[in-house]
């Protein structure tokens, strides 16, 4: 029976056009909407699978604004059974702050009788891309950590984690409790069913504020790389363009 805690971050959906807030300190996502990263979607799927297979539980936690309830409800709708919101301005938190706040949740819940043997996170957050929270969290709790993992299996008192290496899949066998940072690609996240969504609405989300004073993330400002003006040369339309294309390939030296 493995109780899993999976960590999520509400982030701007970068598929749309990005604009910055007036003070250039954050992304203005009003028009693009919010999501969680693909890595975290995979982490949720793995958490739910492990909970099902071991008869344990999957709890989702997020540090963010009150609106992050939306992302927690999505996790509940696909099979997490509980959710925790650490209400805070995520923009003011650096990776060390987030790790500390999450570690406090793990400790508090342990004191109240729930020990999370497996902590799952995304490899890096889709917006800040710090690549540190899983590792800093592991150090805060004195647990082993592996990153870039696509699938996990619980076998007795350890977790077998598989990631992609340059020479083939790399396997880790790590004793529990452990921290695993997940990379998308190993599992297909399920879609919520209508029943799942109904159920998710009824779950009471455990809401609190972290008690730490964040040290911050060193951000001075955000900058949008200037959009290069389009200089595209249209070689033609449809199959008739083939001659012009092959002429170009020859000029570039990639075809004879």
């Amino acid at each position, binding site marked *: 029976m493995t109780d899993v805690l999976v960590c999520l971050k509400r982030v701007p959906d970068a598929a749309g056009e990005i604009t910055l807030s007036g003070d250039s300190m954050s992304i203005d996502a009003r028009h693009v909407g919010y999501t969680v990263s693909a890595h975290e979607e995979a982490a949720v799927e793995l958490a739910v699978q492990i909970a099902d297979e071991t008869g344990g539980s999957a709890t989702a936690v997020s540090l963010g604004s009150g609106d992050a309830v939306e992302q927690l409800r999505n996790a509940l709708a696909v099979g997490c059974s509980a959710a925790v919101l650490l209400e805070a301005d995520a923009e003011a938190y650096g990776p060390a702050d987030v790790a500390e706040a999450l570690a406090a949740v793990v400790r508090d819940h342990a004191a109240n009788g729930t020990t999370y043997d497996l902590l799952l996170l995304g490899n890096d957050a889709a917006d800040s891309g710090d690549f540190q929270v899983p590792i*800093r969290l592991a150090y805060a709790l004195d647990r082993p950590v592996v990153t870039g993992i696509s699938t996990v299996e619980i076998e007795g008192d350890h977790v077998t984690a598989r990631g992609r290496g340059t020479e083939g*899949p790399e396997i880790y066998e*790590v004793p529990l409790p452990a921290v695993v940072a997940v990379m998308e690609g190993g599992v*297909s996240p399920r879609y919520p069913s209508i029943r799942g969504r109904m159920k998710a609405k009824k779950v009471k989300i455990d809401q609190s504020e972290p008690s730490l004073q964040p040290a911050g993330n060193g951000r001075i400002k955000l900058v949008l790389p200037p959009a290069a003006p389009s200089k595209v040369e249209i*070689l033609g339309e*449809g199959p008739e363009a083939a001659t012009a*294309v092959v002429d*170009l390939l020859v000029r570039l030296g990639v075809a004879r």
Partner: protein
Amino acid sequence: MSTLVLVETDADGVAETSGEALTFARGLGDPVRALVIGELSEAVTSQLSDYGVEAVHHANGPAFETYAAAAWAAAVVAAARETDAGVVLASGTPRGMEAMAHSAVRLGASMAANTVEAVSRHPMVVNRQVLGGSVLEQMQVDGDIAVLTVAGHACEAVPADAPTTPAISTLEVEVPESDLIAKVVRTEPGEPDESGGLKAARVVVGGGRGTGGPDGFGDLTELAELLGGVVGVTRVVTSLGWRPHAEQVGQTGSRISPELYIPCGISGAIQHWAGCSSAKTILAINTEADAPMVTKAHYAVIGDLHEVLPAINEELRRRRG
């Protein structure tokens, strides 16, 4: 004060991404020292000399036989102390990222991931990629030691003006058992990660949703073969299971930098662009003239890829005779 670079190696010597990191490190002004973990070949030493490295610290032994991030971090910390490092950096590869994050915790340092340029050295201010590279963050890295990773292809790997004769020393590093708990216990053969080929390819032919399905890659694959290139795809394609994830280009796939990229039926979303923007030349094939991939490309053909590609392949074969 020095700048310490964790150097990764491959069959050819210093990995290209580590060459980029060494070039970035030289730009910071302090003498550059390299840490090499595992085997240290002559090719690596001579390339490090070309990159203008002042000294090479070599960590080897049973603790480094199989990869363990914490053991690597133990070596990084030992080398940082020995070299009085003000900046510790690596390339933003999976290993580089992981080793730097562990090292930052152990050094009590802040870390900036995916740095593209240094704005100032005192204080250490960098620009780094966030949101998959579509936004840059200017970040101040406080503390006595700054830990950085350098985003892939943020700068070119360039040798120093004059080669150095680096002093080579063995790094004494004690790796406790606890640093070997999370280590690679085996590598499974059979399904190698082919993204290495993708990253090094001179020509990449890209396929997106516009291919229409797993059977829509025939002409694309043929074009790749005719040009001695490889196939790259979008996340839509891998999510739908049309092609393996190893072929994915983008923020959560490979970052490519070929001479020529030919994206077919790819809209050019920012996360995809993050992986292909370093291509020297881009030739887009798309039905929509206003798709971002088309407007960002150097050349484009407007049309159905299933009609355009066979015509190109035929013309190539015809000229070959």
